Every structure is written in C-alpha cells, then in structure tokens.
C-alpha cells in the first residue's frame, strides 16, 4: 500500500509550548447598583456560563466583594473587561497570582 498523503512540514521553531503565556484575569467587583439577576444574566449570556456557574460567580462578587470571572491571555482579558464595562459592571484586569 502506498501512502500518498504528504505530511505537512513542521518547523522546529514553532513550539507553542516553549514560552507559556502568562495568564491574566478579569476581576468583577461588587457595586451597590447592579441587580443580582442582571449580573447572572451577563455572566451567562456573555461568557456562556451555565446558570449555576454564573450564579456562583455573582454570589462571590456579592459576598466576597469580587470574583475572577475569566483567565487567559492579556489581550483577551482586556476584550472581556471592555464587554463587562459595556454592561455597566465594574471590571479590572490583572496578572494572575
């Protein structure tokens, strides 16, 4: 049997895992204005979280004063923070501890 499928040439230098990206995170802070149902809905519809997970995060914001709602590359976290600001949530970006 003849293998006719050409294998793609892989460059030795393209090692995605050589320098792991430093993780960043989006933190949402408690505020006295935003409704609990609203915050749950934003987490659910924007991030695609389940109602249960979104509710847990909302309660963490409410009781602990803040919650980490997303972790990943800095640029992505800045996009998420902007989206949270669009919804009127008080979000900040920081390097993951």
């Amino acid at each position, binding site marked *: 049997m003849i293998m006719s499928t050409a294998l793609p040439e892989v460059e030795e230098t393209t090692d995605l895992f050589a320098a792991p990206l430093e993780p960043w995170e989006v933190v949402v802070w408690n505020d*006295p*204005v*935003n*409704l609990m*149902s*609203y915050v749950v*809905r934003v987490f659910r*519809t924007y991030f695609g979280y389940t109602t249960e997970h979104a509710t847990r995060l909302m309660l963490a914001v409410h009781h602990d004063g803040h919650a980490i709602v997303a972790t990943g590359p800095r640029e992505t976290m*800045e996009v998420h*923070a*902007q989206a949270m*600001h*669009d*919804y*009127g949530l*008080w*979000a*900040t*970006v*920081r390097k993951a501890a």
Partner: protein
Amino acid sequence: MNTTPITVSVATIEEMHLARLVDDFMEVLRASEQDDPGVARLTPNAYPDDDDASAAFASATRADLLDRRLHDARTVRASLQMFDPDAEVTDADARIPRDVVVRRDHVDAWLRTLTAIRLVIATRLGITDDEPDVGGDGQAVYDWLGYRLELLIEAVDESDADALR
C-alpha cells in the same frame, strides 16, 4: 436562535418618564465631560494599580465605549413614542397602558441602557448601599428603574428558558 420579541406593558406616564430619562442620558453622553463622575462610572479604570496601563486602556476604549452607550440609548429611544414636552397629560391619560415591544436583537441595548442610567443616577445621588435611603424624587426614579429592569430581565430569562424547552 430565539427571536421572540419581549412585550412590556407600561403606563403612558412611565413611558414619558423613560423617554425623558433616555434623552437626558444622551445629553450626558454627548457632553461626556472628563470630570463627570457619572461618565466615569460608565468607563471604569481597568488597571487601578497601574497608571500607564490604565491610561493606555482608557485611551483605547473610552470613546468607543461611550459611543456604544449612545447607540444603545438611541435604539431604546426609537422604540418609545415621541412626546411633546409641553403637552398636558390628564391623570386618566397618564394611566393608559401601552405595549412597548422590545425586539430580541435590542434586548441587550435595553438592559445596558437602563443599567447605565441607574448607574449615573446612583452616582449623582451618592448611592453606596444595596438598599439606599437617600429619599426624594431621585430615589423614587432610581427604584422605579430598578423595578422595570428587574421585570425586563425576568421576561427575557423566561423567554430564553422557553426557547430551550
């Protein structure tokens, strides 16, 4: 995708109030003064511990963020009636209910706008508590908007759940 519009029944007087609030809000956005705490609350500092990153983020996002608020507000305003600001409304007329139809693709604009207006009012009134007690017309408007927003969220969440059944 769920395309069912949300219908909200509001009294004429409520719709007039809402239209006026949205108009006022658009004025605040157009002015978007640097030292307006209400506008500041709509454009939070993403890097409170890093002045350079904070300034870079603000210059990259602030204007667009406020443009999007204006766009949202226009969408909401367009679903409300035009009112003559000098028109006299009788008590009977004021109570007449009307169905305001919120298109599904306008739901986020509605939620964000009602939220943003509440944030600006809260900033103006100095509300710092979950159960504020500042009193006056200001808090009455703030509480009423919260009630309306809560009803809208309930209706949209319910409609989402129905669509999944």
